[in-house]
């Protein structure tokens, strides 16, 4: 079971994502942005960070990296892909997922532990969670507000493609102004998941708010083993 982790110039949480894969029993394979080869991995993680310094627009330059020429068709063909934070931004810029991520409504970078409700457990990355379960993981970004037009939002909700929603405070506000409190979404097929919070920072006791993030990595390991068995 080999999970590729792409490093773009400016990726930061690539080593953390690789550690999370290993901690959950997988083999992490480092993929280089300039390499147009996926090296036969069974799944890919686009990690957090500031690829290309977030210049122009978050994820807008990374989208054109040579590795994306291989990744986009593979993802469209069913390869499990997880985009975390900047990785989510790369997925929306690549049109693998709808919507966009804009500056937080309070206009500051914000690093906080957040509670997420899991609303879809049929994706490649969430099958180890229970429907409606609350998980506590880290949110840290400056441009994390998920936005889309109302039709897209209605469609995402109608098709059950909202995977995670933020908990709200006493004033009904989520941590960054995301529309309909959406923290993470998936594609029609359920193999591509993008979210702003960081499950890879919640896999080891003592080094993060919880170990609730492990479910992402154990889910995909099971998913690929099962896919291999039915293939």
């Amino acid at each position: 079971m080999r999970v590729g982790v792409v490093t773009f110039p400016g990726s930061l949480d690539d080593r953390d994502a690789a550690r999370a894969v290993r901690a959950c029993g997988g083999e992490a394979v480092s993929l280089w942005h300039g390499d147009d080869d996926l090296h036969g991995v069974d799944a890919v993680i686009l990690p957090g960070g500031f690829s290309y310094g977030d210049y122009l627009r978050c994820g807008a330059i990374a989208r054109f990296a040579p590795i994306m020429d291989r990744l986009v068709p593979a993802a469209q063909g069913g390869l499990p892909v997880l985009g975390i934070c900047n990785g989510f931004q790369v997925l929306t810029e690549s049109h693998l997922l709808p919507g966009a991520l804009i500056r937080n409504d309070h206009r500051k970078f914000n690093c906080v532990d957040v509670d997420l409700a899991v609303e879809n457990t049929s994706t490649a990355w969430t099958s180890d969670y229970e429907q409606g379960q609350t998980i506590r993981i880290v949110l840290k970004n400056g441009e994390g507000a998920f936005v889309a037009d109302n039709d897209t939002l209605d469609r995402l909700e109608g098709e059950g493609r909202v995977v995670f929603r933020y908990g709200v405070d006493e004033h009904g506000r989520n941590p960054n102004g995301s529309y309909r409190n959406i923290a993470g979404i998936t594609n029609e097929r359920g193999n591509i998941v993008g979210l702003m919070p960081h499950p890879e920072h919640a896999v080891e006791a003592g080094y993060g708010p919880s170990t609730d993030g492990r479910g992402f990595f154990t889910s995909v390991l099971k998913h690929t083993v099962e896919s291999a068995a039915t293939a």
Partner: protein
Amino acid sequence: MTQPVAQSEHSGIPSIDSVGHAAATPDLEQPWAELGLKDDEYANIREIIGRRPTIAELAMYSVMWSEHCSYKSSKVHFTLWGENTTDEMREKLLVGIGENAGVVDIGDGWAVTFKVESHNHPSYVEPYQGAATGVGGIVRDIMSMGARPIAVMDSLRFGNLSHPDTERVLPGVVAGVGGYGNCLGLPNIGGEVVFDDCYQGNPLVNALCVGAMRTEDIHLAKASGAGNKVILFGAKTGGDGIGGVSVLASETFEEGGPTKRPAVQVGDPFAEKVLIECCLDLYKAGVVAGIQDLGGAGLSCATSELASNGDGGMRVELDLVPLRDASLEPHEILMSESQERMMAIVEPDKVDAFLAITDRWDVEATVIGEVTDGDHLVITWHGDVIVDVPPRSVAHEGPTYHRPLERPGYLDELQANGPESLTRPESGEELRTQLLSMLGSPNLCDKSWVTNQYDRYVMGNTALAQPDDAGVVRVDESTGRGVAVATDCNGRFAQLDPYAGAQLALAEAYRNVATAGAEPLAVTDCLNFGSPEDPGVMWQFREAIRGIAEGCKFLGIPVTGGNVSFYNQTGDVAIHPTPVIGVLGVMEDVARRNGSGFRTEGAHVYLLGTTRDELGGSEWAHVIHKHLGGRPPAVDLAAEQKLGQVLVAAAQEGLLEAAHDLSDGGLAVALAEAVMRHGVGARVDVADVGEGVDAFTALFSESAARALVAVSAEHAGRFGQIIGDLPCVHLGTTGGRDLVVDDQFTVSIAELRAAHEATLPAVFGE
């Protein structure tokens, strides 16, 4: 700022002021005074090189002989470090003072380097870029030792929270620290945010970075081996930050003076992140013989220091330096402080491998010269020699001043005006009200408005971060071995008594590291003071260094490096002496660190250490009475050491539910913070804290060498054996949703939090 007049504007003078031209025109008037040099310094330069300096040489000497780079006012006092460092203290010191950063051995073949540095003046002029490049600069210092940077911390001081200019400076500084550090992928694990009127025109931005490497991977800033190539890599050189060290960091701000913004550098954290990864690959490939970052004084500093530390000379073709602005003149290129640049010394047969790695990272790298077997630093510009100097005279043999020092006359009166005359609260209700006012006061209030703008989780090794007492990060993922770091300083204590104040800062940082469960190992310091031309400030400075050096000797932990920032004053008014101390400690397994908050119900709460009636310079006197006077709390380093040993031993055995240092605001504030952290309350009795110690003194005194701990019933017996003869008072137990002080008051955690959390958002917005 004033720039040297372009030579081409003088009629009949060649456009390049070469060495030959300088020799032929000895009487040419030069703008040495505008560059910050004194007349005797200029005369000294002429004597060293035997002629008038070229404009490029003058530029180099002016920046390298600035207060910021040459330590000309402070270095006569640095003998105190050596005199107070014993052989035993040197044992774990792999690299000491004088390099880019000190390095200590933390065991298992791991070395850790750390240093704190000021970026005060730029941060006042241009808060975002000033603070951002402060982080960038210290990170490059750590990188140039061969280490991977693993964490940053920031010690910030601002003027009055309600002053309009604080609203300009603080959000910019915080966004700059976050904007740069977050983009580098370095966890920000702690620091300080302090407000005091004395910092209104001189905010302090002190940035600390920690790095780790295997002991065999240590690199030094040294250009040795004739024929080795000099490679400049990273960002192109631009016109930003020209004269930053001489203009900004080495002068006092005058009201109504010209704006100094162009002297502030502009940072590009993305370029630096790529540079970090690129450098680590270069180290791994073994292609770097010597390395130096370009910070203050830019190329002037890097070339002269590398050559000065090496065994020969150096020749550099300055016209090969890649430029962002083609119109820059040679002396400007030498002075530019453009960020995200490094200089490496590389053996000729390794140049190709070096360039292959920089190519992979899209980092521009250019061979600009080589190490020679001569003893001069020679710099050419399109073939003309424009610099020909002994490098040591630039880098290490600058002027030294024995500035006059004199104990300030106001000190007797200040010390005589103690807190005894202040009205003390007489009822439980008054104590309760004062506690709530203090929790909401600028220095004690919740700082998450600031710290939530910093990524504390990236790298996945953070075991403890703000608001806990120390930041703790894992270094070795297989064993859990790691380090704890804390920075502290109470400038009010140092104002009342700089010797004691410096030792109290050292003691607090030491205690914070021990409270987290780590064994204190080494010290870095950032000495922020007013003008060295004021004998009173120089006296404070000398006293503070003496306090730190003697304190370190007593505690057996060496100073490994640091930084001096003078001229932190507006007009005649200097800041409080602010010697910020960073202490680094080591833990075999950081999973056993102690947090500062109560976590479970039914644990025993103990106060360790001795409480006396000590309120001089306290937060209580400051907040409730706006008073500063008397003497700071007594320093008892033997007690600190004993307390530290108990805390570390208890952590190693996993006996503590929580441990929290007592400092600003005393026991009352420590208890409030401990109950607010995880929402677990406590019931305590402060009637028997000490002989003659009433409830008020028990709650608000700031006696040093004390900590609050919570121990589960299961471990209470074993804990009793460990503490030995350390004074220990059983205060009560954890539980409930209130802080209950028997016979005095009850306050709910919700009410504490409401008071604690509202302050910064009320000023800066949600």
